[in-house]
């Protein structure tokens, strides 16, 4: 079984032989303990790679950017790009392959297994430490060891793990060229527990909950920017497809359909978030990036998780396991449920 050091050795070899263009991985950030995405171009820099419970980012997003960059170049470098992935990130890559957005030969996947744990939630950590600054976070068996300025503290894994990691059923990469760590499927009692809690509320309570949450939205579109699945060249919320020139009349501008206004008003926010959720139906792999990037802590994950639950329960569709599977929304079965139709 390979470990993370073997993975680094492989990365060094690939870069030395020039088999990959560059490598996208995790490095230590400016504050000394949190991981940030790093781009490694030389074998010497591979030393910078780290793997710890703060590697929260979904690096599959950078593959979308890479494809755009390549499309703009006249003579693009055709070598593959190396990318370090966790279980959820690898499923994002599977969906991108399924939609034929990227080609398998354009990527070299270095998988790391989360092994019984996952990544930590910043908010939970900050609450636990109560203002103290962590220096280093390690995983030891079923506990997180956190070194702070006044010594070490220990917490059980469940207390610090991100919500999505607690509900994750496949915490190992499903697609990889080299894998570090073991493929262990952990048992999860309630994979949709958090969504079921909201479903259990009454209709008006649910409405109040979402109204309160979505009223906060300032429409910064951080959720869209960070999402590896939001790769449309033109998003429905930015009406840019009307070329406004000097002779565009006021009437032409007025007749341009504006599906959603840009103002951060409650009703518009609802339409934006509902559309985003529908666009991610059967595609969202629950990497939790939208929720992490949200500056106002809106629990966006629930909207996507709800549709994931429906897809699984009704259509038996599991997202991100098979690149050959037809996408959920663009396929159908003759016996799909239709009892809601009159």
């Amino acid at each position, binding site marked *: 079984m390979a470990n993370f050091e073997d993975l680094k050795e492989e990365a060094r070899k690939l870069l030395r032989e020039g088999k990959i263009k560059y490598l996208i991985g995790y490095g230590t950030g400016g504050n000394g303990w949190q991981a940030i995405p790093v781009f490694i171009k030389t074998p010497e820099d591979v030393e910078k790679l780290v793997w710890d419970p703060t590697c929260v980012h979904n690096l599959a997003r950078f593959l979308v950017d890479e494809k755009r960059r390549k499309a703009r170049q006249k003579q693009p470098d055709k070598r593959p790009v190396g990318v370090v992935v966790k279980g959820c990130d690898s499923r994002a890559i599977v969906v991108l392959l399924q939609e034929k957005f990227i080609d398998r030969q354009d990527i070299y996947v270095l998988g790391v297994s989360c092994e019984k744990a996952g990544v930590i939630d910043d908010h939970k950590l900050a609450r636990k430490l109560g203002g103290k600054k962590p220096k280093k976070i390690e995983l030891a068996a079923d506990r997180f060891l956190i070194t702070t300025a006044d010594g070490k503290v220990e917490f059980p894994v469940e207390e610090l793990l991100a919500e999505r990691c607690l509900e994750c059923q496949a915490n190992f990469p499903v697609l990889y060229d080299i894998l570090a760590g073991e493929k262990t499927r952990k048992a999860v009692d309630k994979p949709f527990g958090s969504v079921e809690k*909201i*479903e259990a509320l009454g*209709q*008006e*309570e*649910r*409405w*109040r*909950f*979402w*109204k309160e949450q979505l009223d906060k939205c300032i429409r910064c579109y951080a959720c869209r920017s960070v999402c590896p699945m939001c790769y449309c060249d033109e998003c*429905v919320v930015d009406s840019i497809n009307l070329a406004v020139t000097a002779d565009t009349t006021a009437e032409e501008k007025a007749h341009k359909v504006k*599906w*959603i*206004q840009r103002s951060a*008003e*409650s*009703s*518009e926010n*609802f*339409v934006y978030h*509902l*559309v985003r*959720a*529908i666009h991610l*139906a059967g595609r969202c792999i629950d990497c939790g990036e939208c929720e992490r990037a949200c500056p106002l802590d809106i629990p966006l994950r629930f*909207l996507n998780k*709800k*549709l994931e639950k*429906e*897809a699984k329960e*009704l*259509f038996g569709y599991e997202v991100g396991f098979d690149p050959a599977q037809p996408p*959920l*929304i*663009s396929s*159908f079965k*003759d016996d*799909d*449920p*239709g009892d*809601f*139709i*009159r």
Partner: protein
Amino acid sequence: MAEEFEPKIVAFLCKWCSSAGSDMAGVSRMEYPPNVIPIQVMCSGSVSPLYIFTAFNKGADGVLVSGCHPGDCHYIKGNYYARRRIYFVKKLLEFIGLEPERFQMSWVSAAEGTKYTQVIKDFVKELKPLGPQAKLRRNP
């Protein structure tokens, strides 16, 4: 006496079946509530979820999507795609707390004028006690 609430329904009717069905109801002089704003679309499969959300956003009290019966689609399988997509929209709207009665789907063929009037009658009857839809409506 206070005026009774009259719901406004936006109906997306497919050109080949439901729209012809509503036409059938019209030429047969069947009576049904005048609360519907019909919008002809080429296929129920062409109804983007965005149309539905926007209809609610711009003041619809109820939205109906209607297409051909399974197997009768003019484009062979458009209504099958619609069935899956609309199901997700319905579940999502329920999840955020909109009354489930406000969004309906039906299969109405070109010959089913009577069924069309019945669908509209039932829809209006269900919407009346709910009152105006204010949850997703844009602030004036």
